[in-house]
């Protein structure tokens, strides 16, 4: 078993475990922290897939900016209490069962799919994930969408301010 594989399994197991911990944690702050762990493991996967740019952006945007925003909101509301209202046990069971059904159906689908047989994802090698190549593609072929995202950001910012001021 190569190092890559060991890392893959380790990161996968950690990601799933952390995701479950996000769910089961009573405290929202703990959930946020476990979610940050998930994001880190996903960044690790990006690195394994040799997508360094996305790995870094993921860390900066998600684990850095977004989760900090979450933490700020939680602390602002002082939600770190154990008194979160719980859903009815049957609703919880129904949610778990339907989510499980969804998972089972999709997995069985993937197992049947002929397209996927023998396909592999290129690990470690391949340079499309490098910042230079991505930058070229972004600023040559996708420059207009890129600029439009700035407008999107602006409008989101204005929206957040307007909503927050009420």
């Amino acid at each position, binding site marked *: 078993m190569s190092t890559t594989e060991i890392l893959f399994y380790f990161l996968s197991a950690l990601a799933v475990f952390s995701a479950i911990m996000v769910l089961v944690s009573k405290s929202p702050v703990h959930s946020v922290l476990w979610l940050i762990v998930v994001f880190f493991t996903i960044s690790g996967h990006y690195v394994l897939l040799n997508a360094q740019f996305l790995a870094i952006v993921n860390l900066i945007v998600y684990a850095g900016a977004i989760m900090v925003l979450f933490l700020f909101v939680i602390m602002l509301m002082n939600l770190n209490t154990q008194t979160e209202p719980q*859903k009815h046990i049957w609703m919880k069971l*129904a*949610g778990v069962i*339907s989510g499980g*059904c*969804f998972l089972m159906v999709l997995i069985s689908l993937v197992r*049947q799919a002929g397209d996927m047989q023998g396909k592999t994802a290129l690990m470690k090698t391949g340079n499309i994930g490098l910042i230079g190549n991505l930058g070229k593609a972004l600023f040559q072929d996708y420059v207009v969408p890129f600029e439009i995202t700035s407008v999107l950001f602006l409008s989101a910012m204005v929206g957040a301010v307007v909503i927050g001021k009420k």
Partner: protein
Amino acid sequence: MSKLVFLVPLFPLIGFLANGLGRRFLSKPAVSIIGCGAILASFVVSLVLFFDVKANGGGTSTLFNFISVDNFSIPFAFQVDQLSSLFLLIITGIGFLIHLYSSAYMHEEEPQHFGRYFAYLNLFVFSMLLLVMGANYVIMFIGWEGVGLCSYLLIGFWFKNTNYNYAAKKAFVMNRIGDLGFLLAVFWLIFRLGTVSYGDVFANVSKLSTADITAVTTLLFIGAMGKSAQIPLYTWLPDAMAGPTPVSALIHAATMVTAGIYMIARSNILYTLAPATQTLVAVTGLATAVFAATIALKQNDIKKVLAYSTVSQLGYMFLGLGAGAYTGAVFHVMTHAFFKALLFLGAGSVIHAMHHEQDIRKMGGLKKYLPITHITFLLACLAIAGIPPFSGFFSKDEILVAAYAKNPLFYYIGVAGALMTAFYMFRLYTLTFLGNFRGTHEQEHHLHESPWQMTFPLIVLAVLSVLGGFVGIPELFAANAHSLEHFLEPVFAGSNAVAEHHHPEASQEWLMLAGSTAAIVIVIVLAVRLYKNYQPKEETSAGLSKALENKWYVDELYDALIVNPLNALAGFLKNVVEKSGIDGIVNGAGRLVGYGSRQLRLLQSGQVGNYILVMVLAIVVFILIWFNDATITRFFSKIF
């Protein structure tokens, strides 16, 4: 000739449209002129046709194709032959007289009702003409229904009186029962022969089995029972006296009720080939004749007596038809039309003079106030009683002789009925015209003879009643003197060829004639003596006479046997089946939807979580369906 045929029904139709549409604008004289003129024009054309037929024989003329389906077609055709031309004369001739009479009798009506009356009357004549002129059973049926409708409208002419409306409805429903039989017979003919034209049917009659003919003739006879008021469907006719008296004279005595006789005479070949039906017709006719005569003995309403008398006389006509004496039946239709129309019009004149008093117990002694009415009424009574040489004698005698040939028992019962006829007619005559006046002084003060529009028809009809019999002098009196029989011979040729005619011995026939005439005279004298000095007294009749006064309780019997069970069934259907069954289903469907909606509404909780849950489940289901569509298709194809 054929060019003129369509004019006969056209004039009354124009009169109907003009009077019906213009009843609010036309003055009463204008309405009378249009109404009477239309019928008079028809009568003139009918006369022309009659002489044409007499000279050249009959024929059919097709106006257009009425119904055409595949190779089956019903032409809208008129057939004018000896039989129908005779009826045309009766209908338009007596129709004209009665229209004329009506213009005076109905003068108290408001102009628009006056117009409505004449419109109905013209429509009736139009329908009746269609009935007798049609060259096939379907056209006859159109007329058949048309006269039924007009009868309904005219019985209920004074529609503000609820009882009159009930009488109209009763007549209509009773007729409908008979019409169903007629209609079934027509369908049967179409099914077996593929044609309804008289010529084709009678030419192909050999293709029908005896069972077929018996069924068709019986069904047709059921139709005739309804229209011509025979047992068991006769009860509507006495009630139909609710209509104006001229209507009773025209529709319920002279023309419409003889439609059944016309129809059987027209189909005489079929009946001759179905001896079972003939016997049925004869027995029904005889039973009706005697039964109605017994009821007439104790009736006190002048029109009711005449109504039962009509039923009774119609019974004689059917007896004649059943005995194979088609000519005799048609002869009696003719003479009966004369004297019964005269009786009704005379009764109308009396009622008119008495200010709508119809109870004969309150009349009497009218002889000196209404001389013309009295004389004509007396002549009509003599005619109907069968005193020679008045018209009724010849026609009734012909029927009774034929009945004797069929079965002597029929003859004796028929003579008994004739004696009763003489009795009740002269009871009526005596109570009305002889003795002392029994009404109020005010009525007596107002007694007056009717205007010329009313007396003229009376005189004409009286002349016809007296002389009408001479077209059918029996062989017994003079050889080949029966001109009517010779005239109608082509129509009944087929039947005469099939059926053997055996006349009784001449000496026996003389004996029968003399005996019955003598008996009738005795009965008349008895009736006059019995009622001459009649004084109304508080009498409670019992036993037989009470049953007779109550018309043998037939209406009550029908109520108990048919009406009440039907009402009970209708009530059951309405209260139980409708309320709990049909309403239950309908309301249940509504309640189910309402309940289901209330339950479904709970699903829309507004909880985002529930929505997402449903969404996820739906995605799962959709994926399953999408990737298993082959399996699902196979599953459903197995089920269906």
